[in-house]
């Protein structure tokens, strides 16, 4: 029971929405499509759903070609970013509608609807109409409708993006739990790296219609194949610094010179991109070989429990992610430390050539 995309492309009016995608989704898996707006996430989901027909390539389900099969005959569910419910039906009827169409006996429908509704905590709302509900409740209704039938493929198209962040946190957790028991393929599209991390499972990075990387979430996170993947799967985006490695030292932007330590010794001399996650930049040195840089504070942004400090000097701009609340005045001088063993290194083609030793291998 797997869904396979084979060389799938979709082009409309000369614009490529999906380019030559090859992916396989296994039953019981939770798959996240991560990419920016217009990366092709929605297009790909529409292809999987059968709402659009690919201009090239095939879709295989259980090894069988289902490329041209219409939506109605595929057993799928989809949840949209907008809260899409039948406005003329009550919540109950909304949830019941796929079952009614499947000609299920009334008692069975009733049982299932109530079960699903209680799972999503909307049981008291069953008699209301969708437009009388809050956004979160509407989206739960939509989810209930998607979950009430035993779809083999459940597609989520940024379902939480229009909700309060706290609500989003809660629903995200619920979702993850819900799918642990199901034997269906879940595909979840999001623009937020954190959401992908929180949801776990498999992550596929998309950019401008192409698949950049795909694999278990931590594998992708720990070993992004190129700078693009690294940028995409990091929030705030990974800091990138131009640097040169010689036999003896590593120079950043011909400005900051550091002795070549063992960590980077394997690199052949040449120009590289060095990437470091904001969370790995510290204000106090953790190791002796941390790279020290003098910067100025451009802006410090504080989330509830963290501070994102934007620092810059005449050569670099970086973002650091610090635990706790740190308030700095703009323009204040600050020294930041880059642990050399947490540097990602990419070659001139922006391909990953070195994974930091301390966090490699996905050892959990």
């Amino acid at each position, binding site marked *: 029971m797997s869904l396979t995309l084979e060389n799938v492309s979709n082009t409309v009016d000369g614009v490529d929405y999906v380019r030559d995608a090859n992916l396989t989704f296994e039953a019981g898996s939770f798959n996240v499509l991560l990419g920016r707006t217009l990366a092709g996430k929605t297009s790909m989901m529409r292809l999987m759903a059968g709402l659009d027909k690919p201009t090239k390539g095939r879709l295989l389900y259980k090894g069988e070609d289902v490329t041209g099969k219409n939506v109605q005959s595929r057993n799928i569910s989809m949840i949209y970013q907008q809260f899409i419910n039948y406005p003329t039906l009550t919540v109950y009827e909304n949830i019941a509608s796929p079952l009614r169409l499947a000609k299920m006996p009334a008692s069975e429908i009733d049982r299932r609807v109530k079960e699903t509704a209680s799972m999503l905590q909307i049981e008291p709302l069953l008699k209301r109409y969708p437009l009388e509900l809050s956004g979160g409740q509407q989206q739960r209704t939509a989810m209930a409708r998607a979950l009430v039938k035993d779809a083999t493929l459940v597609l989520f198209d940024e379902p939480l993006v229009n909700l309060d962040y706290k609500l989003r946190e809660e629903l995200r957790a619920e979702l993850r739990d819900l799918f642990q028991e199901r034997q269906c393929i879940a595909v979840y599209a999001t623009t937020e790296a954190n959401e992908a991390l929180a949801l776990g499972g498999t992550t596929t990075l998309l950019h401008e219609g192409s698949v950049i990387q795909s694999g278990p979430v931590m594998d992708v996170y720990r070993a992004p194949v190129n700078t693009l993947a690294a940028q995409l799967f990091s929030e705030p985006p990974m800091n990138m610094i131009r640097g040169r490695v010689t036999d003896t030292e590593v120079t950043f932007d011909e400005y900051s010179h550091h002795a070549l330590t063992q960590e980077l010794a394997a690199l052949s001399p040449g120009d590289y991109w060095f990437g470091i996650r904001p969370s790995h930049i510290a204000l106090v040195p953790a190791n002796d070989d941390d790279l020290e840089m003098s910067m100025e504070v451009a802006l410090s942004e504080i989330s509830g429990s963290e501070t*994102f400090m934007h620092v810059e000097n005449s050569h670099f701009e970086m973002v650091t992610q610090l635990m706790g609340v740190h308030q700095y005045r703009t323009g204040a001088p600050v020294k930041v430390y880059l642990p050399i063993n947490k540097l990602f290194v990419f070659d001139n083609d922006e391909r990953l050539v070195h994974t930091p030793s301390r966090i490699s291998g996905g050892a959990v």
Partner: protein
Amino acid sequence: MAEIQLKSLAHSYSDSPTGPDDYAIRQLDHVWHKGGAYALLGPSGCGKSTMLNIISGLIQPSEGEVLFDGKRVNELSPRDRNIAQVFQFPVIYDSMTVYENLAFPLKNNKVPADRIKTRVQEIAEVLEIEDKLHKKAKNLTADEKQKVSMGRGLVREDVSAILFDEPLTVIDPQLKWKLRRKLKQIHEQFDITMVYVTHDQLEASTFADKIAVMYGGQVVQFGTPTELFEAPNHTFVGYFIGSPGMNLVEVERCAGGVCFDSTVVPLEPWQADLLERMTSTNVKIGIRPEFIEVSAISSDDTYESEVLDVEDLGTYKIVTVRLANQEMKVRQNEEFEADLGSQIHLSFPKQWLMLYVDEFLIQEQQR
């Protein structure tokens, strides 16, 4: 620029409110000082937009007074209050160019033409839309539109205040970073009273010097981001600020402190002291996941708990543990490792352990 004071403000959308539930805002007193950058934070439906609209004059409050620099303005229209407001969804005049949009409020205020020109240019530069000035506004992308929308608020120099109503909702996450930063810079540059309504703690804390957290039609805490994080005044603040929110455990009084199930948590003497003077049985302790310390070995002040789940979020991990019958979240860095079901030992540093009676924080100075 003005100081904005709200005096025993209340508002209900129904004509004849029967109970407190009918009120979107209940009995609220608050002052926004001149030149401050403030955020109004709360979940949807807490009354924050209502409050904003009352300040701007789009809504007449049912009760109470709105004072600008001490002068009652209840009866004044938004026009006369001289206030700028940016809405959640971009409101742009789509028949005009970006330039005309930005110049619109100035023209309405009869600002001289050359001044308009320089001012619009200035704001466009700040918002990085100077290359789009002569485009038709309706052909912009959503975030560009919102920038224009903001620009119209920012372009006026003489405003009493600029109000933002969740202005970044429609903006792509990647761009939110930039815009937030922009706003902060603008505030620092122009020093205008700004009130920023949001449900996103990140936006609020980043933008504001002080945040008012609203809950159920009331301001439950007004403080700096640090205060909100480190000493949430109300259990709701604890829950709402921080991701994940504060661990809150219902406890009972017992010898040496408070206890839940059979676990005793000792209190600071002043806390115990204060608790004793109160009668309420609604007592909770709260501690943020970030402040719980974990060690592999047991000691006197540690509590043994079972690891239920470890969630790897890349830069850090969230560990869900069970202590007695309570589930708690603990935040650990990315190097943390533990097997599910294994036992770990938690400790609650005294200075981070908060005590709540009737949902409000017991603070030392109350003594």
